[in-house]
C-alpha cells in the first residue's frame, strides 16, 4: 500500500548506494525533483536506467551519482549533446561511467518483460546493428516454432523506479495522462516504486473507463511535489521549459559552471522551489 511521504524520507527509505534505479518519463513527466533529492543525499554507485537520460541523468552523472548507465538515446532533445554524459564517457569525469547501450525497442521490451515477471524479453530487433557487438546483454535466440532469429535482452528489474504523475487520490492511487511512456511498466517491474505528483485530490473525477491508473498497492511512496517535472512538463499543468533545455547546453558544457549550477539550484534548493520555477518559466519577460 502506498503511503504519503516527504521527498527526503521517500528517497532515504527506498534508495541505497549501489541500487539499480529507473527514473522514467518519455520527455514528459520526468521526475526532476526526485533526482535532485538523490543528488542532495549523496547517493553513489547507482546503476541508472532510463531510455533517454535527458538533463536529469546528465545532472546526476555529473554529480557523481552513477557507476553505470543503461540507456537508448543520450542527447538533449532538440538541442544537441548531453555534455556531462559525454565528459563521463569520453574522459571519465567525475568518475568513469560504464554504459550498457540499447535501442528504444529493446528498452521498452525489457521494461514490459520486467512488469510481466519474465527473466528476459525477446523481439525482432538489432538485426545488422553493431550494438549487439558491443553490448554482451544483447543475445539472439531461435523461435522454437518458426526458426526465426530474434533478439533477447534481460528484463529490467530496478530496485527502485521513480516516476512523476499528475494526480494521486486520498487512497494512494496514481493517475497518469498524456504521453505515458514506459512508466506503468517501469513501476510494475520494480521492487519498490516512488511517485511524485502535481497534486493530491480527494478522488479522480471525470475519467473514462480506461484511464492509466497505478493502484495504491503497486506504489510504495507518494509525494506531492508541484512542478516536480520541471523543466520537463506535466500535461494539463505546465508546458515544457524549452528555454531551459536550450540554456542547459551552455551551463553543462563547462565543469565549473555545471558545479556552480548544482550548488545553487540543487544542493541549496528544496522540493518546494519547483513550483516557483514553473511559475517563473510561465511568466513572459518584458520585451
Amino acid at each position, binding site marked *: 500500500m502506498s503511503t504519503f511521504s516527504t521527498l527526503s524520507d521517500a528517497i532515504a527509505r527506498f534508495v541505497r548506494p549501489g541500487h539499480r534505479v529507473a527514473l522514467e518519463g*518519455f*520527455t*514528459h513527466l520526468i521526475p526532476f525533483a526526485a533526482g535532485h533529492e538523490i543528488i542532495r543525499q549523496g547517493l553513489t554507485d547507482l546503476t541508472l536506467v532510463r*531510455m*533517454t537520460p535527458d538533463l536529469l541523468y546528465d545532472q546526476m552523472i555529473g554529480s557523481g551519482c552513477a557507476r553505470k548507465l543503461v*540507456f*537508448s*538515446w*543520450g*542527447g538533449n*532533445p*532538440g538541442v544537441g*549533446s*548531453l555534455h556531462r*554524459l*559525454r565528459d563521463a*564517457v*569520453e574522459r571519465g569525469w567525475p568518475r568513469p561511467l560504464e554504459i550498457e*547501450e*540499447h*535501442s*528504444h*525497442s529493446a528498452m*521498452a*521490451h525489457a*521494461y*514490459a518483460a520486467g512488469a510481466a515477471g519474465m527473466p528476459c524479453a525477446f*523481439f*525482432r*530487433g*538489432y*538485426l*545488422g*546493428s*553493431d*550494438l549487439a557487438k*558491443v553490448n554482451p546483454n544483447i543475445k539472439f535466440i531461435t523461435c522454437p516454432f518458426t526458426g526465426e*532469429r530474434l533478439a533477447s535482452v534481460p528484463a529490467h528489474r530496478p530496485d527502485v523506479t521513480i516516476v512523476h504523475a499528475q494526480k494521486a487520490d486520498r487512497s494512494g492511487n496514481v493517475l497518469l495522462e*498524456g*504521453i*505515458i*511512456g*514506459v512508466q*506503468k*511498466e517501469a513501476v510494475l517491474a520494480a521492487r519498490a516504486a516512488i511517485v511524485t505528483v502535481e497534486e493530491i485530490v480527494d478522488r479522480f473525477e471525470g475519467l473514462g473507463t480506461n484511464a492509466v491508473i497505478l493502484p495504491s498497492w503497486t506504489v510504495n511512496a507518494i509525494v506531492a511535489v508541484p512542478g516536480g517535472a520541471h523543466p520537463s*512538463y506535466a*500535461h494539463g499543468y505546465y*508546458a*515544457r*521549459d*524549452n*528555454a531551459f*533545455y*536550450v540554456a542547459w547546453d551552455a551551463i553543462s558544457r563547462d565543469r565549473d559552471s555545471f558545479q556552480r549550477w548544482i550548488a545553487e539550484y540543487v544542493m541549496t534548493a528544496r522540493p518546494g522551489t519547483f513550483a516557483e520555477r514553473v511559475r517563473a*518559466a*510561465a*511568466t*513572459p*519577460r518584458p520585451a
Partner: protein
Amino acid sequence: MTGAPYTAAEMMTVAAARALRNDDICFVGIGLPSAACNLARLTHAPRLTLVYESGTLETKPTVLPLSIGDGELCETALTTVSVPEMFQYWLQGGRISVGFLGGAQIDRFGNLNSTVIGPYHKPKVRLPGSGGATEIATGCQRIYVVMRHNPRAFVQTLAFVTSLGHGVTGRERREMGIATEGPVLVVTDRCTMTPDADSKEFEVVSLHPGVTREQVRENTGWDIRFAAQVAETPAPDDNELRALRDLNARTSEAHGTVMTE
C-alpha cells in the same frame, strides 16, 4: 517552378516531403524528417498518417516539435499509446509503411551511424545513440533518409552501424532474410539518390538546380555513382515554399516565445 529564391535547406525539405503519399503510415524521426513529413501533410498529402515514437498515432502538429515527446504531438493525435505498445504492436507488428530517418553518418549502402565517431570504447565523439532508429530501419516497409550532404556525413566506412541499410556489402539485408525493403531514398541538400536494384549501392538520380556533379563528388566520401539518366530536381514551387515558411515561422514563434521567457 517559379524562379522564386529558396535555400538549399528548403530544397532538401521539399524534395524529401514529395516522396510521401496520402496512404503512407509514416514513423517520423525528429529534426529534418519531422519537417519534411509535416510539409507533406500540409501540401500534397493531407491524409498522410504520422506517428512518433512517443506513442502518438495520427498526430497533426501545427508547429514542429522540439522534442519527440512535445505536448503538441499528444494534443493533436488521434490517440496516444504507451512506448512499449508503440514498438511492439505498431512498429514490430508491421503497421508502418515508411520510416523517415536522419543520422550523423551514412555509407554507400544506406547504413546509418548515430552512435559514435572513433572506437566505441574510446570514442572521439559520443553521439546520442539509436533511440528508435535500429528497429525502425528493419521494421518499416521502406526507409527514406534525409541528411545534409558533406564529407563528414557521407563516408566510405561507418565508425559504427547503428541502423542497418543494405549491409556493408549491400547483400546482408537479403542474406538475413529481412522482409522489409530498407532504405530506398536518400535526400540531401544537393541531390536525391536511390539504390541500384542489384548492387543496392546508392546513386544520384537527380541534382538540385544549380548543383554540379563535381560538388556532389567533393562532398561524398566514396566514389559516388550517377544514374544513367540524372534529372534536375524540380525547384520548390510557390505553394511548397509558402507552406514550409509558414510552418517554420509558426514553429519559431511558438518555441521562440518560450525560449525568450
